[in-house]
């Protein structure tokens, strides 16, 4: 099981260098990153003149990975999800942000921290399936998942609590592969003791591998809070693409992007 970022880099290096297409690199950040990733033994950068050219190379299998590089986020996702590109559907994309918990020697995953704004229950199922697949790549066979809400009881005024309850039931019936509990608030999800104090006997409390966040306002901003106010490096993975794709979100440092490339490499 992969328990920290160092192990991600090691595993990626062991799988060998991957060819990574990057459209029109021009910033210092991107050039330095490509240099570093090459030096580390992760990738062979393949700079390409135009965005659609890079996407075509990824689609044809000329490269193993695709990197957003200096392309704008909206442009890049649009180009990736037009039908002709054949790489992804916009509604099926999700993003996972990973953080290390050194005291417990393990990783936690937050999703969807970038792509879907207000996912409905069907999209949440897809987001979870992506995260469960991803957890398996890290060696977590049966991830424990908290479907977060503001409350622990189903409250029809709080849609995330209803979604969470449905997802928990689906997991109970083995329609989803992880162990999902919800609705849980963050306080209970992150501590068995606190959840017991509230009278909840939760199979995931205190051992959560995957936090499913209710909507983009919570998920994107919480990723930012962890990064800036927790001063933590994170790693990220875009899910739902036929070829592993590395994004360039602004709240990820160069080292985070290096980790993103490593994560993409082990998914090839």
């Amino acid at each position: 099981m992969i328990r920290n970022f160092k192990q991600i880099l090691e595993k990626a290096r062991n799988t060998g260098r991957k060819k990574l297409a990057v459209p029109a690199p021009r910033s210092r950040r991107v050039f330095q990153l490509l240099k570093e990733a090459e030096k580390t033994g992760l990738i062979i950068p393949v700079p390409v003149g135009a965005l659609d050219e890079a996407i075509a190379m990824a689609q044809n299998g000329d490269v193993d990975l695709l990197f957003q590089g200096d392309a704008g986020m909206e442009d890049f996702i649009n180009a990736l999800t037009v039908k002709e590109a054949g790489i992804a559907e916009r509604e099926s994309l999700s993003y996972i942000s990973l953080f290390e918990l050194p005291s417990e020697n393990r990783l936690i995953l937050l999703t969807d921290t970038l792509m879907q704004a207000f996912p409905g229950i069907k999209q949440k199922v897809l987001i979870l399936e992506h995260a469960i697949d991803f957890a398996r790549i890290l060696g977590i066979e049966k991830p424990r998942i908290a479907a977060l809400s503001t409350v622990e009881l189903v409250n029809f005024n709080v849609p995330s609590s209803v979604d969470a309850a449905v997802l928990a039931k689906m997991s109970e019936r083995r329609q989803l592969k992880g162990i999902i509990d919800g609705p849980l608030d963050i306080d209970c999800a992150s501590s068995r003791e606190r959840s017991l104090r509230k009278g909840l006997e939760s199979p995931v409390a205190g051992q959560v591998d995957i936090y499913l966040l209710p909507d983009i306002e919570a998920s994107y901003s919480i990723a930012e809070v962890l990064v800036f106010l927790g001063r933590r490096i994170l790693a990220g993975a875009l899910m739902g693409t036929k070829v592993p794709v590395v994004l360039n979100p602004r709240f990820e440092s160069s080292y985070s992007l290096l980790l993103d490339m490593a994560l993409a490499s082990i998914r090839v």
Partner: protein
Amino acid sequence: MLIRNFQEAEEIARKVGPKKISVLRAENREFLLALKEAHQRGYGEPVLIGDERKIREIAEEISFDISKFVVIDSKDTQEIADRGVQLAATGETDFVLRGYIDGPPLYRSLIRVSSKRELKKQICVVALMQFPVLPKLIGLTDTGITVAPDFGAKMEIIKNAATLFSRLGYESPQVGIITARRGLNDELDSVSDAIKIKEAFAKRQFPECRIVDGLSLSDFFLGAEGFLEGFDEVDYSRIPDILLVHNLEFGNIFVKIDSVAERDFFSGVRRHGFIVGAGIPTVIPSRADTHETIITDIALGVLIS
């Protein structure tokens, strides 16, 4: 007397006190221990509302002489909240300290009192937070009452928070509006509300606070276009004083963010909550708080009343 951390709050409260405190459901050991200490420090004296027999029992156990204080016997939660709020509304006490009661009955009492005084009815929770990486306290709002405030509600929430901060010594607090604007699928209610709020404040509808540029922590710390390089380059003094969250889904997680990694990267985070907007200073310790934390709540109550 600008309060930059909770220790300062405790020191200044010694000079500002004593005040009178409505304590809602006081029959709790941690609360009574805190009130005993607060009284010794000169913060003030309580009016103890709740189960009188239990209150007197616990007070005796902890050797807290409450013979000089008013004790109001009641076991009905709504009545306890109403009595305590009413005492503060008539000036018999200076602020309300929530003891062991739920939020909703207290919200009801506060809204009733504020409607009678024809004050604005949008009450909200402001969480005052201390993060070790930040050079000052920040206020998050609304982290407790309205699930999905609209533009009008957000305007009132900002004004409420600014009023609280002015009591804490901030002359024109900076307000940052946090949204999920991230250069992708940005047609969000949070973003359109933020634009309207900025326009409204630009017309100086409320000069007591200032809305800062930017719509996310990335914007505040990295500017509109910047990318994170390393944390040494992040200027933490750029954090606004007050952060408005779009909805409770986010606010609720943000306010308890340290629970995710309290042994790792969020040790030392502290928080204290207030209900603002009813014109009745109200501090709301959380149920898990120990008496040490509740003493700080009381000190903050002294400062804002």
